[in-house]
């Protein structure tokens, strides 16, 4: 039995089923509200859901059972001295390397830390007070911190990604920060304006846990890899039908293996030729192979958003992604073949394997 937490524009869906067959919808929570992101912390079993009401704003909910009762966390919320600033959306909640510690990322772009299993949250002020912040620019989804990559076994080291203000790195648990901009090529701005720009639109970034200095990145227009912990990046999009896309997933058991889902481009965010294909690399991004067996292969005009693709960590690897069409697809064999787990949900914002 596999459990998925599927965030959508119209609530959270808890899906359970056997890989290879349609999953059952066992619960719908937060009807009518946008569930930006939901996941289960594997350490505690506790579930988190970031919920944004169109009327009443964003908040974080906690549940021990996702099909049971959810209760509100306290925050994230900006302290009184950060005037005129309110949290608009909570994009990510990520377990840290210390017991009971989690990080959250929000719009506006801020990092938050909880030391009590997500009950309360504190703003990371050094990153909030980054001297270049006035030069940061929003992407289409806002100006948000959407990715947090802890370093396995080293709680002081973090990499975070901001759209559109690039990669930020710390080696002292967030006391000081530096950028990881080298090699990123923002082709969406004029060449003469690229040198020194902060407008680096990272769509998603993921660390290879067995080789933590390696990260893969889906950028606004290309796919990159870093082998020096995010300090510098090299383009690895050759062989993909398009450089644009949102999510990237790394096989937790193999630092050479990663998956992306290319879209035509920024102006047309649908799969090339209307064919939904997941592209897989087994050699660190040197070559890519498209996998579409079991996925819609004609007239499919959907978008897969940055938090809507996940792996289960099993062997063979299970992979799941959701689309703005309201469909959720899965693979029980590392992406070789795919099945439809759910259809006609609301537009999917996030997918996480939770059990």
């Amino acid at each position, binding site marked *: 039995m596999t459990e998925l937490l599927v965030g959508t*524009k119209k609530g959270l869906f808890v899906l359970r089923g056997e890989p290879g067959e349609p999953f059952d919808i066992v619960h719908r929570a937060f009807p009518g509200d946008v569930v930006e992101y939901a996941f289960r912390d594997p350490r505690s079993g506790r579930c988190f859901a970031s919920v944004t009401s*169109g009327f009443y*704003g964003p908040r974080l909910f906690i549940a021990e059972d996702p099909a049971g009762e959810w209760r*509100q966390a306290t925050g994230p919320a*900006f302290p009184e001295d950060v005037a005129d600033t309110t949290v608009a959306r909570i994009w990510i909640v990520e377990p840290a390397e210390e017991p009971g510690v989690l990080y959250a990322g929000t719009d506006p772009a801020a990092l938050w830390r909880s030391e009590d299993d997500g009950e309360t949250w504190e703003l990371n002020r050094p990153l909030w007070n980054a001297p270049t912040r006035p030069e940061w620019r929003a992407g289409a989804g806002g100006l948000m911190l959407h990715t947090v990559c802890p370093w396995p076994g080293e709680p002081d080291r973090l990499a975070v990604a901001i759209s559109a203000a690039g990669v930020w790195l710390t080696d002292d648990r967030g006391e000081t920060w530096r950028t990881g901009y080298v090699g990123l090529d923002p082709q969406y701005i004029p060449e003469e304006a690229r040198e020194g720009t902060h407008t680096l639109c990272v769509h998603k970034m993921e660390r290879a846990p067995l080789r933590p200095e390696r990260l893969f990145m889906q950028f606004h227009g290309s796919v990159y890899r870093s082998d020096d912990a995010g300090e510098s990046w090299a383009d690895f999009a050759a062989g993909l039908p398009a450089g644009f896309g949102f999510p990237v997933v790394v096989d937790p058991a193999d630092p050479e293996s990663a998956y992306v889902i290319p879209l035509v481009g920024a102006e047309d965010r649908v799969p090339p030729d209307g064919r939904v294909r997941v592209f897989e690399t087994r050699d660190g991004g040197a070559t890519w192979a498209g996998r579409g067996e079991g996925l819609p292969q004609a007239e499919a005009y959907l978008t897969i958003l940055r938090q809507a693709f996940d792996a289960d960590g099993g062997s063979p690897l299970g992979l799941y992604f959701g689309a703005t069409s309201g469909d959720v697809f899965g693979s029980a064999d590392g992406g070789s073949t795919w099945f439809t787990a759910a259809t006609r949900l609301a537009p999917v914002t996030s997918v996480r394997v939770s059990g």
Partner: protein
Amino acid sequence: MVVVTLRSPLRDLAEGSRQVDVEGATVGEALRALERRHPRIVGWILDEHGRVREHVNVFLGGARVAEDAPVAADDVLHVLPSISGGRR
């Protein structure tokens, strides 16, 4: 006392109360008093800086009012979702 009237889902957060009597000299003070009475409502009507959220309407005497508007005894504040908030 000022009367605050609530609809779902705010009513559910206020343990089912359709209206709550609170003290306060301004809309903001009255809504903060509501939050103290029903802590689950914190962050829903007012943001973290005490301002009425963009897509929430607070009406007093038929007019939409902001958090700094004065209120008097027996005033009734109606809290409703704005039609601008449902686009997502």
